[in-house]
């Protein structure tokens, strides 16, 4: 499974702002559309750390990285590769 699909599945299943997987496109704005809120962001971070095995620093929990599933997957993959 790609990182984007894993994120999509988690957001759909586990976040109160989640939607059906089909609606969670790679370029859907996660923040402006309120898919990810103040509680959801830290559920998402802990999913990435525990299930995807990528540690994220507090200073990396910023809009630029979490804007869309596409940007987040790219960020996670880049962290994993480095």
């Amino acid at each position, binding site marked *: 499974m790609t990182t984007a699909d894993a994120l999509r599945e988690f957001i759909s*299943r*586990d976040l*109160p*702002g*989640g*939607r*059906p997987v089909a609606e969670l496109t790679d370029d859907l704005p996660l*923040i*402006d559309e*309120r898919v*990810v*809120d*103040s*509680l*959801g*962001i*830290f*559920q998402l971070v802990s999913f990435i750390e525990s299930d995807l095995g990528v540690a994220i620093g*507090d*200073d990396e*929990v*910023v*809009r630029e990285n*979490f804007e869309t599933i596409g940007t987040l997957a790219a960020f996670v993959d880049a962290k994993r590769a480095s």
Partner: protein
Amino acid sequence: MPEVLHSLLERAARERPGHPAVSDRGRVATYAELDARADALAAALVGAGVEHGDRVGVLLEKSIDAVACLYAVMRTGAAYVPLDPHAPEHRLAQVLADCDVRCVLAAANAPPPAGPGVLDVGSVPPASGAPVRAEVTPDDLAYILYTSGSTGAPKGVMVSHANAMAFVRWAGAAFGVTGEDRLSSHAPFHFDLSVFDLYAAAAAAATVVLVPPEGSVFPAHLRRFVNQEGITVWYSVPSVLTQLAARTDLAPGDLPSLRAVLFAGEVFPTRWLRRLTAALPDARFANLYGPTETNVCTWYEVDRLPDDDGTTIPIGRPITGTRVAVVGDGGGPGELYVQGPTVGQGYWNDPAGTASRFVTEPRPDLPGRWYRTGDLVEETADGCLRFLGRADGQVKSRGYRIELGDVEAALYGHSGVVDCAVVAVPDELFTARLHAFAVVEGAVAEPDLAGFCAGRLPRYMVPQTFEIRSALPRTATGKVDRRALEAAALTGPGRR
């Protein structure tokens, strides 16, 4: 001092026309511009048939125009009903039907569910002709704010101009708000913390700065926002500030502009408040307390913190003009009753609900009209009030007030649910998370229930976790054993 809320804008526009009134992500409206826009919108509302005594819904993302809409509605003599643009249609329809709005101010690309007339704010031209100035008295309703109701129907708290003004006047004086201040606007307009942000700013002809969506989600952005915007007075629920203290390495001097930090809505965990006050040694901190029905009724200026993190700060003493009473069996803890100019007018379209909470002479020594908060409090030796908890099923999560019965009613709306219970699981950073237990018939799985709730309830009321069980535990008297479920939710394998 003017007696109605919208006259604050008129005065500010007259006295400081060129001063920034509202700032939103780099866009700024001066008081003159905000006043002109409110005039244009008020004229359009009158054109749409809005009259004194009506209700008008405002279904917009926070923006300069949304602020102008609130003033425009009040100028027509109607009460504004702020609506959550992210609430599901079902919830919006419930609110719109309950308060019978004359029309809804909305954006063309995000109209309300079918029902009342819609006024597309984007199509409203600049005002021409005499400005709308309906005759509004302090006893008229300024706005109606909908909160969670225990039976599954949201209830509308009616607040008059006099009620709101009493709070705004007190707050402006208590925190010394001046025309040079820059106030944050974090809370959505359908949440009563916004009343301070918008109107304490207008009363001083100060600037209110709207917190962008990412500021609520990312502590790092919030910190940047406060610095870049030079925020001097911050007001929000504690969970936002807790995140700031917990997830950014805030040190003294990092937020030099902040001179006052106000919070309300729920208990601020002492451990995080300690960290925040250490990072802001020169700022004032104050805990404001009050259900929506009372605006704010007591406050506590944080002068020193308890020595141990297990003790919370008090909710303090009554604000000017307010009386409080602790009504219990004897001299100990009891329910907090509130009387005074900030106490609202009751619930819209709900005389029975109003009569049960807004009571007259509850005891011979308590004459007049009182609001029963449902909050259990005790009075400390030095005369401060301390919040102890609730006697009913109301919980707080991130400052949002949630009736567990409201969430359960939504779950029962699913045809496969035969029994259910929702419990609050304590959470250090978010006060509480909701966990739903359900007994179902047919092929219903946890994600089905999660999706169903998301379609019926505001986001903040959707449980974080769901668990299907074959039966719910019962007490000897046949009631759902909530204690057992709370214990299970703390340790159990919550899933969605």
